[in-house]
């Protein structure tokens, strides 16, 4: 954040439709230099379209995009030199080795990092001579990240960097992204994993149906729920519970019933739990399942849209 309030990316009035589907609908956002900014939303929310318009790969129907004080068109070549891009579905050439792939991408940039340095950064030293086709999903993704880094970018775009990876590979990638953040790069990433957004992003824009429906730090977004905990329970064969009665319980803010599950948004867990157990006892209902967890971005999304992030 050494540049203070410098704006790395500014998007205004962005709109993009594919035939009759509105992918992005009048979207505005600003990303500060040095910030890690997340676009969080379910599949089809318009995250990829948004990021690809920013990357100059998709032409918007309307709206303006300004990156590092430049625009696509007149400054395309300069911008390409200064951006690092990792696309969602790219398959790099299977027949090339890790080293050859990075050398190829390095050759496109006037200045940048050495191939050796990037190999070390993305921890593919042992795989330097392996062909891309033989890498695991996580290694391929780290190589794609390496290709985005060889130009020593000021602004890095990562589209679903950990989708489809196993938990260990995801954590490795998170470490790498945190390293890059610590190095002060500006990062814009899309994800539909709320834990990823919570862990990596300084600020998160929650997207749904082509619009931003909430934008703040993960902490502030969760705080906006006004509750700290979520309690979920089921009563199995015991029959329905009176939602009205549940919402009257001490410390409970609101209640949702879904597929035989009840979800309570709870302000004070230590008061709500005994009250809930007492209520069920009084009505003679069994408790077949019970979970509590701290509120997450997922809960924010559910309370905003009534749907889960990974419904679709």
């Amino acid at each position, binding site marked *: 954040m050494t540049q203070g309030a410098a704006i790395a990316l500014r998007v205004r009035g962005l709109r993009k439709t594919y035939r009759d589907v509105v992918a992005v609908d009048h979207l505005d956002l600003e990303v500060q230099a040095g910030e890690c900014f997340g676009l969080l939303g379910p599949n089809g929310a318009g995250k990829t379209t948004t990021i690809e318009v920013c990357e100059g790969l998709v032409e918007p129907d309307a709206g303006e995009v300004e990156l590092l004080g430049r625009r696509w068109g007149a400054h395309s070549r300069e911008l390409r030199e200064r951006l690092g891009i990792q696309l969602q579905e790219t398959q790099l050439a299977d027949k090339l080795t890790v080293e050859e792939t990075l050398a190829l991408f390095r050759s496109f940039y006037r*200045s940048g990092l050495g191939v050796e340095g990037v190999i070390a950064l993305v921890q593919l030293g042992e795989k330097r001579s392996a062909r891309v086709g033989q890498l695991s999903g996580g290694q391929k993704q780290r190589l794609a990240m390496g290709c985005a880094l060889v130009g020593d970018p000021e602004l890095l775009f990562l589209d679903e960097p950990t989708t489809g990876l196993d938990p260990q590979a995801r954590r490795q990638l998170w470490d790498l992204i945190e390293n890059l953040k610590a190095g002060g790069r500006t990062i814009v990433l899309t994800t539909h994993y709320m834990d990823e957004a919570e862990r990596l992003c300084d600020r998160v824009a929650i997207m749904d149906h082509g619009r931003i429906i909430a934008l703040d730090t993960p902490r502030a977004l969760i705080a906006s729920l006004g509750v700290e905990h979520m309690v979920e329970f089921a009563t199995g064969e015991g029959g329905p519970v009176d939602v009205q009665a549940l919402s009257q319980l001490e410390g409970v803010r609101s209640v949702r019933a879904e597929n035989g599950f009840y979800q309570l948004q709870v302000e004070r867990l230590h008061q709500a739990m005994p009250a809930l157990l007492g209520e069920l006892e009084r009505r003679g209902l069994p408790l077949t399942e019970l979970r509590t967890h701290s509120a997450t971005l997922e809960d924010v999304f559910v309370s905003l849209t009534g749907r889960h992030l990974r419904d679709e």
Partner: protein
Amino acid sequence: MSLSRLPDAISATNEPRSRAGSSLVQLTLVRYREFLREPEAVFWTFVFPILLAAGLGVAFRSQPAAIMRVGVPRETAGAEELARAVRSDPRLTVDLVDGNAALRRLRSGRILVIAEPDGRGGVVYHYDDTNPEARTARLMVDDAVQRAAGRPNPVPVRTVPVNEPGSRYIDFLIPGLLGMNLMGSGMWGVGFPIVDARRKKLLKRLVAAPMSRAEYLLSFLLSRLTFLLLEVMAVVGFGYWVFGVPVRGSLGMLALISLLSSLAFAAMGLLVASRVQTIEAVSGLMNFVMLPMWIFSGVFFSAERFPEVIQPFVQALPLTAAVDALRARMLEGSPPAELAGELGIVAVWLAASFVLALKIFRWR
């Protein structure tokens, strides 16, 4: 400025691009690597045409004039005498069998002519008069029969056999195969990797980096040049060393014809691949474009066999022009001026395909 943001270990390696790291060099190296690491591609480009030439060269090799087989029905009177007369020509051999067997053998092509005494001192010939070989056999049989009966030759004759390299089928075939190979490798060598890269979104990823699009396309042409040299040497060299197929006229001109043809087919490959998204679609489109040329362009037999009406179409095909020019150069050593027409046709295909391809090319 950017250095200050980097971890120490990384900033130490920040370096400008070296000459070997030039993107055109790197892109061209990628072309070589991808090709050489694909055993199938190497087979189809280098081994297949040689196997084909070897197979066809052996099947159609020049051999001494074949012995022709003649049937004589043995139950007829005078059969023995007729058979003896026919056998007086060493190029003829006689099956002395009964009449029905002789007919069966004639129908199945095992004998070419049935010669049958008509019982009044004459001979009847049964043969298929649309079969040139049978017509030849009938003439030879008749000649032997008439000479045996005492016909004199009023004009003295002498024959000198000619079996010169350049007039055999293999000589005709090698330039044709070379042309066909240039077409296949030119079109596939460019079209396939481009569609593959587009399908994998690699093309999109490349243009997301500051890559020069012209250099990307140029890398295909540069790598084609190298492979072209190897392909020409493989096919022409094989024909020359194994079958003695002549290479008349300068090698430079042969190289020029090959180069121009190869670039034209590469440009056509680029055009075919310019918008296609899947391997299946590009395969179909490639075959659709190449099929008329396999049939009409005179690779395996002369294109002039096709009716006059379609000759303008046949002659306008780039492969017809390429094969005609290669054949004229290799077999007849035609001077460059005589090849101008063919080379002009190839050049028009090259320019038109390239310009159109660049116009409609889709990078994602």
